[in-house]
Structures are given as structure tokens and as C-alpha cells.
């Protein structure tokens, strides 16, 4: 017998020993970061960067496959006992000796996860991880000249690139409201002092928003540069237009953070994505009834919110709990009780 076959036999036997649980349920007690476990990470330190941003140092589990500079990772964090998933750019270089990675998070005004990470996260906490992904990355062949165009926390993936790969000629234009809001400011200034970077800071609180036409003056040879841009949609839209106008759009690489903006309203269009049906629903009819009316096969039980026999994934949009008025927004892994939930705006139910 081959050793893999042997190992799988041994594992089967172990499963018989631990049924109905899995051997990994017990192994997780002692070694949650081991190879073969669900991918997790442990927060090892939290370093403040600015008043509302911090870098989180994470030791990923053994299954971590490593990242390419510029990529992001989805992490699952328990906030007030509820697991929430968000994506953050990796800011550590890919060759970090100690095997840890970092993300840098800016607390958004109503951001549950970002505020938790910046202000409350404690070293030692376990978080859930996905493998890193994203194609906002540097090319294999080194370009001669590079421009990084960033704003706010859009600097984070670019910082991962800056720390990872040195180029002969790098210019950065970065926008932030005030000097103290510039994340990684000291490190950027050190790079400037070492002549590894030319930096223009645009302080939007005093200078106003960056007018893309000003690039001609700030970086006269911008059109010759391979450019990576990351920031709010307004900036990226303007950049894309500008690059296209000058016929150099293939030199521009952009990354958009897409915070899914859910408008919670009263009723809305309900899509049953598995069946491919779409119907209008008011804000008072349970989605279970809406689905049944539309001829969608809906699981159900008590029809009054107590048996959990009707729970169904909410893929997009928002619903309102008819008993408490509480709004639930779609996120990966969110299940709703259709018998006591009504549409709060357009939503997508996996049925």
C-alpha cells in the first residue's frame, strides 16, 4: 500500500473514533494554525499608523500559500460575537523573514470591522483567512519607470509593492486630507531621503481634490510610466479617462475598493437566483410568502420564526426582520429566516 493510501486509511479510522465530530475538531483545540486546518491566522501585534489607521501583524496558518505584492486577502473577524468578512490589501513584502504578513486598516466612520481592528483588536486573537487574491500586481518584467497614484487607504496595496520590489525610477502622488492622515508617512519620507522614491503629497483639506490635469505639472513624463492607481472611485474614473484620452490606457492599472452600498428601504425587487425569478415585494410580506407566490420552492416549517427550517442564504441586498425591525445586509455566509424577513430594498435570495 502506498503511504497516501495508508494515511487515508488511518484518517478514516480516526474519523470513526471521533464521529460525529471530525478529528480536526479536536486538533483545532490545540493547533488551530496547523497544516491541513481551515486557514486561520493569529493577530500578533497592532501598530497604530495614524489617528484612524493601524497595521495588523498576522501569523497565517501553515496552509497559507503566500501572496504577490499588491494582492488582498479576505479575513473573517468576530465583532461583538458575529463573524464578519472583509477584504484588505496586504502591506507586507512577500519575502518577510518571520513568515508574518500585515494588513493596514483605516477605520471608516461606520465600519464595524475596520473600527474593531483599528481600536479593539488584541494580539492573540484568531481570525479566519482566505488565500490572497487579486490581479493588481507588478508584472514579471520590471518597467523602467513607475508611477503610483494613490489616495487615502488606496496607498495600502501600493505600499505592499513599494516594500516588495525596488525600481530605478519611482514617483508617487498621494492624496490625503492633511499631512497627519498620510499612512506610512515616515517610511515614505525615509524612502525619499534614500533617493528611492520621489513623492508628491496632495493635502486635499488645504489644496482641494487632485485635478488629474495637474499630473502634467507634477509628473511631466506620466504617460511614459507604468502606473498603478488605487483610491476612491472619483479619482480612478478621472485617471482612466485621462489615460484613455492620451492613448496610453494599457499603462494604467487600477484597483477599486468596492464597499457594497446597501440602501435599506421598504420593499424592493427580490431575485431568487437559483430559480432565476424576479418579483416585486413590499416591505411587509415575508419572503417565504413572496417566493411561494412566485412558484419558487421554499423550505419552511413553523412559519413563525422559531424552527429555523426556512433559513436561506441572502446573496445581495438587505432584509428586515418583521419582528424586531432589524436590518440584515448580505455578506458571505449570511442566512436569513425567510418566514420573518421582508425585503428592505432590492435583494437576492439563493433559491
Amino acid at each position, binding site marked *: 500500500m502506498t503511504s497516501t493510501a495508508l494515511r487515508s486509511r488511518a484518517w478514516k479510522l480516526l474519523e470513526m473514533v471521533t464521529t460525529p465530530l471530525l478529528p480536526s475538531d479536536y486538533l483545532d483545540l490545540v493547533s488551530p494554525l496547523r497544516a491541513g486546518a481551515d486557514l486561520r491566522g493569529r493577530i500578533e501585534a497592532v501598530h497604530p499608523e495614524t489617528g484612524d489607521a493601524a497595521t495588523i501583524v498576522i501569523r497565517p496558518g501553515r496552509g497559507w500559500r503566500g501572496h504577490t505584492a499588491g494582492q488582498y486577502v479576505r479575513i473573517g473577524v468576530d465583532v461583538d460575537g458575529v463573524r464578519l468578512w472583509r477584504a484588505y490589501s496586504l502591506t507586507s513584502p512577500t519575502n518577510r523573514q518571520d513568515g508574518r504578513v500585515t494588513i493596514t486598516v483605516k477605520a471608516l466612520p461606520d465600519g464595524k470591522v475596520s473600527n474593531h481592528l483599528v481600536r479593539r483588536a488584541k494580539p492573540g486573537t484568531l481570525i479566519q483567512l482566505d488565500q490572497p487574491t487579486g490581479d493588481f500586481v507588478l508584472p514579471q518584467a520590471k518597467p523602467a519607470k513607475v508611477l503610483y497614484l494613490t489616495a487615502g487607504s488606496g496607498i495600502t496595496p501600493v505600499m505592499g509593492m513599494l516594500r516588495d520590489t525596488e525600481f530605478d525610477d519611482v514617483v508617487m502622488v498621494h492624496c490625503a486630507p492633511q499631512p497627519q492622515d498620510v499612512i506610512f508617512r515616515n517610511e515614505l519620507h525615509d524612502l525619499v531621503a534614500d533617493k528611492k522614491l520621489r513623492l508628491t503629497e496632495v493635502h486635499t483639506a488645504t489644496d482641494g481634490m487632485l485635478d488629474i490635469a495637474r499630473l502634467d505639472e507634477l509628473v511631466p513624463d506620466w504617460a511614459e510610466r507604468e502606473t498603478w492607481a488605487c483610491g476612491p472611485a472619483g479619482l480612478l474614473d478621472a485617471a482612466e479617462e485621462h489615460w484613455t484620452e492620451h492613448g496610453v490606457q494599457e499603462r494604467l492599472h487600477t484597483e477599486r475598493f468596492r464597499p457594497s452600498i446597501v440602501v435599506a428601504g421598504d420593499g424592493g425587487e427580490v431575485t431568487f437566483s437559483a430559480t432565476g425569478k424576479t418579483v416585486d415585494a413590499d416591505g411587509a410580506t415575508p419572503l417565504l410568502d413572496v417566493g411561494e407566490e412566485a412558484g419558487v420552492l421554499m423550505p419552511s*416549517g413553523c412559519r413563525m420564526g422559531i424552527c429555523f427550517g426556512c*433559513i436561506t442564504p441572502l446573496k445581495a441586498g438587505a432584509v428586515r426582520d418583521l419582528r424586531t425591525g432589524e436590518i440584515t445586509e448580505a455578506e458571505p455566509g449570511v442566512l436569513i429566516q425567510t418566514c420573518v424577513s421582508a425585503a428592505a430594498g432590492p435583494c437576492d435570495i439563493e433559491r
Partner: protein
Amino acid sequence: MTAIDPTAHLTAEQIEELGRELDAIRDEVIADRGEKDAAYIRKVISAQRKLELVSRGVLLFSFFPPAWLIGTAGLSVAKIMDNMEIGHNILHGQWDWMRDPKIHSTTWEWDHVSPSEQWKHSHNELHHTYTNVIGKDNDLGYGIMRVDEDQRWHPFHLGQPLWNFINACFFEYGIAAYDLELGKNLHKRRRKNPEFRARAKAVGRKIRKQVLKDYVIHPLLSGPSFLTTLAATFTANLVRNIWTHSVIMCGHFPEGVQVFERRSIKGETRGQWYLRQMMGSANISGSKAMHFMTGNLSHQIEHHLFPDLPSNRYAEVAVKVRALFEKYELEYVTGPLPKQVFSAWHKVFRLSLPNKKPKVKTPDREQELVAA
């Protein structure tokens, strides 16, 4: 319904007001649910796993009597924790709000021969929706006992103390059979129903796995302690079964608990539904440890009012619920475990014999039951 309706003094408005007050209690807990609760269930799960590991480890040396005693006691407690505070409550969806796929009603499987999927249907859906409604809630006597004067007596019921005792010893099998609705489904025609066969297969698979684990694999692993480990796991299962059976009997069987007619729940309002849960359930009083070991089903009344609130909150909810019972002059049936167990068993014995016709006439129920 028993001869005298203990809720007769309440007006319809009062019942709806009561419903609103209960909703407010529920909302308060939900608004406050958070990190501490999540930490609680994680701690309990991790403690259960460690206890089971250690107990099974000790049982590897079970030929040594003190090891047998410690291992068996530990395993019994671990199995009770798995079924009660952890399994029962997770399968109710009490912890779904954490969005942790590992502690979720859709993924959890327990140390029990009834697959959680089937149990959720018969328990969460049928029993919790139709609590104590004769002919709709099969938990009333589990189809083998007569638990109310109104139910028709049959000579079969003479043996019910014995059936109940056997059921207690092999309770998990009783539940599995009950979830399968074996009594009804063993008729020739129904036996062939593909849906029933699929469910029966699932139960068969689960039983095989559980039996193999407890009575073959672990004894074999113990080598020279084979027989003593076998005896230990058998004992642990027996202890767990008798314990859970007792706790569950105390939930709806003690004297003073009401049962309802089918007709009475037609068009039931939210307030009336709440009221039925209040009158149809009974609590067990006792220490924190007692509540924990019953999976907080000692707070059966609160659990039936709010089956999806996290179990660690029932104790604080109970104070407010009890105040409502007093305010509306209703009887809050509760008592220490021995008293409640005695009361339930007493009823089982008493109703094994025929009784006089109930004072209140319920002319068409008999027909309705036949029609069902």
C-alpha cells in the same frame, strides 16, 4: 383542555398585551447579544471536547477500577453536555447569529443516534409549533403513553410505566424512532415510501457509526481493557439517556401543565401562542450546575417562549417571565428535579388506568382524531 381553564380570567386584550410584553423581553436580549455570549458557547464546546478526550483516555486503562469510575463519570457528563447545552441549543438556531459555520444549526451533528436533520424537523418544527396540542404534538406521550385525562384509554396503556422506563434507558433510540414516526410508517404501504426509506437509511447509518465508535472502536483501542471500556461506554450512554429523559419529562408532563385541543389553536394570535407555551411547559428549580446539566431546559417555560434565544440567557429572562406570570395570575409550574420527576411519573402511573369521563364535554374531538 383540563376541566377548568386556568386562563379563563384573561381578556383578549390582556392576552395581546402579555404578548407584547414578552416580545419586549425578547428584543432586549437580542439587542444585547454579543461577544460574551459567543465566548460562552465556545468555552462550553471546548470544555466538552476536552472532557470527552480525557475521559476516553482514562478509559484506555479501565481495567483499573478507579480509572473506570472516573472515565465513566467523565464520559457521561461529556455526553450530557453534548446533547443538552450544546446540541439541543445549537440545533435550535440559538447560535446561528454568530455566523460561525462550525457552530450552526445547519451544520451541527450530535452524539446521538437520531441525525440532527430529522430531529430538527420533529422537534423544532412540530413540537415547538404545536406544543401540547393533542393529536399534533407527538411529544405528548411520544405516541406510547397517555398523559392526559382527555386522551382515550386503551388496555395497552396499562403497561405504560414499563414502556416509559424502557424508553428512558434507550431514550436516544426512542427519539430516533419517534423522529422517523415509526409507529405510523411501519404500515405496509408507508414502509415503501421512498422518502421514509431515505430517512430510515440515514438513521441506520448514524446508528452504525455511533455503535461502532462506542462499542467496537474504543473498546478495541483499550486492548486488555476491552470489556471494561465496553461496559463504561454502555453505562455512560445509559446515564445520559435516563438523565435526558428525566429532564424532558419534567418539561411538559408534571401535574399542572395544560394540554390543548386542536380546535383551540385555529387562528391563534401571537399572544395566544405565547400563552399556550406558558401553560404547556414546566420548569425545574435548582443551582447553576443543575441548569447547566439540563442544557437550561430547566427553564423550559422560557425556552418554549423564546426557543432561539441563547440558552445562557434563560436564567435572566426567567425573572422577568415569572413576574409576568404573577401579574397575569397564572401558575408558573416549577419545582426541584426529584419533585418534578415524581410528579411526571405519578401521572404516567395514574393515567395507565382508565378515568372517569372529563367534566368538560369535547364532543367532536374524538372524530377529529380519527379523521387525522
